[in-house]
């Protein structure tokens, strides 16, 4: 009966907080506390993941959440998400145009070369995953020298600010349906203000996946890639960069730039389909985007966007095509919360289970 001591639940919780705090600081005499800036910069990919799964673009609070959660990405995203509950929604952004993204990386696997060029940027894709032992003893001087030197050899003026989209070429060539300008005018579904009632709009599905947990999205998308589904995607374009955010000016109402968010965006092209109205068959599209630099998440989401659309059109034939299955199981905050809750006392229900088992045993 240890965790429902007749009195003392409160004391136990206080004790548990204290030991957790001890573990956070256990490094001892030589230790220096983690700075929010350090987390944002040196653990930038973890930081981006927390921004994205937390669903609030607040870099400083995301760093704090990671520090508080001692690096657990689910806990950190959760802390950020709970903070979100306390703040009202004040305004809606304009429809943001990802063509205006300040690119740090963009690639297409569909073409050898693309207008504006392939920009490999920062990626580990072609790195050998070998231990870099020298980093174990990196001195602060060596560390700072690297970033100091890097810009020296770079001609910043030569790099264009924006790049055209690969999809534009496919549209021009009549391989992809033209952009539906009207759809951009429809107001998006806000998953933080409305419950998901199935069937849900594509906008609701995309928003749910955009703050979904990376591992969950990957697992379900992977099932489709392996054969529980048939999206067979080609990455038309994957881009990472900073997207300007526009809000209406409080007085004039004119859109004005209020800042930028780091974003990963992925557009996959999949098997062609007849348009159903006697027109020529066209490639189909899957779209993924999330805060921060997270390519696995954006690609998984794009594949799932496509598989869900397949499921809606033809009826779900496997888990990745079933909107309820996918959308109700990818949220990390919900799934980890429910998983954790099994650790709470359940002895009343277990008492009831024993009663039923004994009654059933007595009859047999």
């Amino acid at each position, binding site marked *: 009966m240890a965790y429902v001591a007749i009195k003392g639940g409160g004391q136990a919780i206080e004790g548990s907080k204290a030991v957790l705090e001890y573990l956070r600081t256990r490094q001892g005499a030589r230790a220096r506390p983690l700075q929010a800036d350090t987390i944002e910069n040196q653990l930038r990919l973890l930081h981006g993941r927390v921004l994205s799964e937390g669903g609030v673009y607040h870099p400083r609070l995301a760093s704090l959440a990671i520090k508080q959660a001692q690096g657990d990405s689910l806990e950190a995203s*959760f802390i950020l998400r709970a903070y*979100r509950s306390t703040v009202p929604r004040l305004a809606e952004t304009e429809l943001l145009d990802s063509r205006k993204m300040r690119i740090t990386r963009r690639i297409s696997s569909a073409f050898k070369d693309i207008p504006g060029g392939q920009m490999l940027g920062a990626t580990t894709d072609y790195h050998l995953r070998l231990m870099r032992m020298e980093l174990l003893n990196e001195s602060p001087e060596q560390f700072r020298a690297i970033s100091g030197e890097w810009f020296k050899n770079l001609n910043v003026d030569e790099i264009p600010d924006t790049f055209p989209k690969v999809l534009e070429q496919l549209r021009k060539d009549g391989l992809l349906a033209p952009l539906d300008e009207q759809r951009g005018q429809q107001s998006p579904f806000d998953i933080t203000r409305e419950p*998901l009632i199935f069937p849900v709009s594509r906008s609701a599905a995309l928003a749910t996946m955009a703050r979904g947990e990376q591992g969950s999205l990957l697992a379900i998308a992977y099932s489709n890639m392996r054969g529980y589904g048939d999206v067979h995607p080609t990455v038309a374009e994957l881009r990472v960069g900073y997207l300007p955010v526009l809000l209406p000016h409080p007085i004039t109402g004119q859109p004005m730039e209020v800042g930028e968010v780091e974003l990963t965006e992925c557009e996959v092209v999949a098997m062609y389909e007849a348009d159903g109205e006697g027109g020529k068959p066209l490639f189909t599209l899957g779209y993924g985007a999330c805060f921060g630099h997270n390519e696995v998440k954006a690609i998984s989401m794009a594949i799932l966007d496509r598989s869900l659309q397949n499921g809606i059109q033809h009826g779900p034939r496997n888990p990745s095509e079933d909107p309820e299955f996918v959308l109700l199981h990818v949220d990390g905050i919900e799934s980890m*919360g429910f998983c*954790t809750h099994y650790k*709470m006392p359940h002895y009343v*229900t277990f008492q009831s289970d024993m009663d039923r088992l004994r*009654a*059933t045993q007595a009859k047999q």
Partner: protein
Amino acid sequence: MILAQQFGFLDEYAKKEIRRTSLKAVAIPGYQVPYSSREMPMGRGFGTGGLQLTLALIGAGEVLKVIDQGSDDSVNAVNLRSFIEMTCPGVGTTRVTGEADLIQSRHRIPEKPLREDQLLVLQVPYPDPLVVVEASEEKRKQLHGEADYSRLLVKLYEDIVKFDEITISHRYPTRINDHYVIDPSPIPRWDVPKLHMSKALVLLGAGREKKIYAVPPYTKAEPLAFEDKPFRVEAFLDEQGRRRACARCGCDNSFLDEYVDSNSGEQVYRCSDADWCDEQLARQTAAEVIYG
């Protein structure tokens, strides 16, 4: 950077949505009304649905009781209560059922009958009793609308064929006002009859599944059963077939916790409802003073 928090943690828009939803829930007894359900600073599954209801309901000057497994001192109850104390200045807390205006509970309904002026909030992990027979929520909503529970009854019947008993121990499917069947939350069967024609309003909140539903006062709440296999509450009989009593207060008509005493190694039965047990004990002591 200091983040100021307002009364009741949630922003006022979140509370308004919960309030609108709860009014619909009362107007359509037993129907699971969807709502957007904000993230709370504790885990989904730890009572966030109940907590959101409590925060939308409660005002300064009111007295709250929080229980988990019948106990006010269970870790989860302590945690929820201290969060509400921290975010709702002016709200009082109590362990005494009779003193509470509002009771938030997980897995139990207090033994002491509630009054009309009291309100019970139950925390719900799984709101939909049909989920065992139909995985798709879209289809379940249609079945609920038509009050079509035939597949659920078949499931109960299969149990009887297999085990000669209804095997559902807790979360017993209960029909409200002759229409919707609810999951009454993981309360034991012992507590289900307390819902029937209850004097107090019962609100049920499922935070993770984003649903709120209600059993209004003076409303029928009938556990699903068959004529020849009636609904039965937990028996608590000893080897001789006698009803066991609480080892502490002697009460023989309360739900009991069974555990092995870590000192004596013996099986012990005690009231699950801590306040009820205290009250029975106090009553005996008073009787001893008078008659002793």
